[in-house]
């Protein structure tokens, strides 16, 4: 799997869910590279913007797409990592702010 191929697959997947990939393609490809690095490291695509433990059960909530993606897109227009975004966010119609971590502090 290459980041480019994953880009193609995930952009169709995002569209099917009524959202999209960030229009900054270069940035997205870097995220996808991180996802693939984590896949070869841990055996699953954990979020490249968070520290994984390598134990799948403990990291289950941050396997991309993470369980926080939809509430983050609803509230801020984008996921924590800025991979998945709403159309409005991408068009600059929603104020771009940092997304606070929803994950419990115990991780």
């Amino acid at each position, binding site marked *: 799997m290459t980041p480019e191929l994953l880009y193609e697959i995930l952009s169709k997947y995002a569209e099917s869910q009524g959202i999209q990939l960030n229009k900054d393609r270069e940035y997205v490809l870097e995220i996808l590279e991180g996802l693939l*690095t984590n896949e070869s490291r841990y055996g699953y695509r954990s979020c490249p913007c968070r520290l994984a433990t390598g134990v799948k059960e403990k990291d289950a909530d941050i396997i991309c797409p993470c369980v926080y993606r939809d509430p983050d897109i609803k509230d801020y227009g984008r996921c924590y990592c*800025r991979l998945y975004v709403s159309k409005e966010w991408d068009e600059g119609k929603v104020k771009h702010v940092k997304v606070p971590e929803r994950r419990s502090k115990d991780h």
Partner: protein
Amino acid sequence: MEEQKKKVRLYALSTCPECKRLRQFLDEHNVKYEVIEVDLLDSGEQWVMTKELKRYNPEVYYPTLVIEEVISGFDGEAIKEALDIK
């Protein structure tokens, strides 16, 4: 070139694009910094570094940049300047 007075430390992940962009920014501005790519450490070291990062930023966000000013001895003027005391 004048020596950099502030110590700069970056807590980052090797996989995170925002971390890469922050590093590029620091490089472009010729900032000397120490970078810790926490995901590349072994699990014991990760534990220590996460604990250290938590002290600065309880949110444990990557990237987190810590800028520290070191003042040697009691230098009132330097302390005032560093803490913006009028």
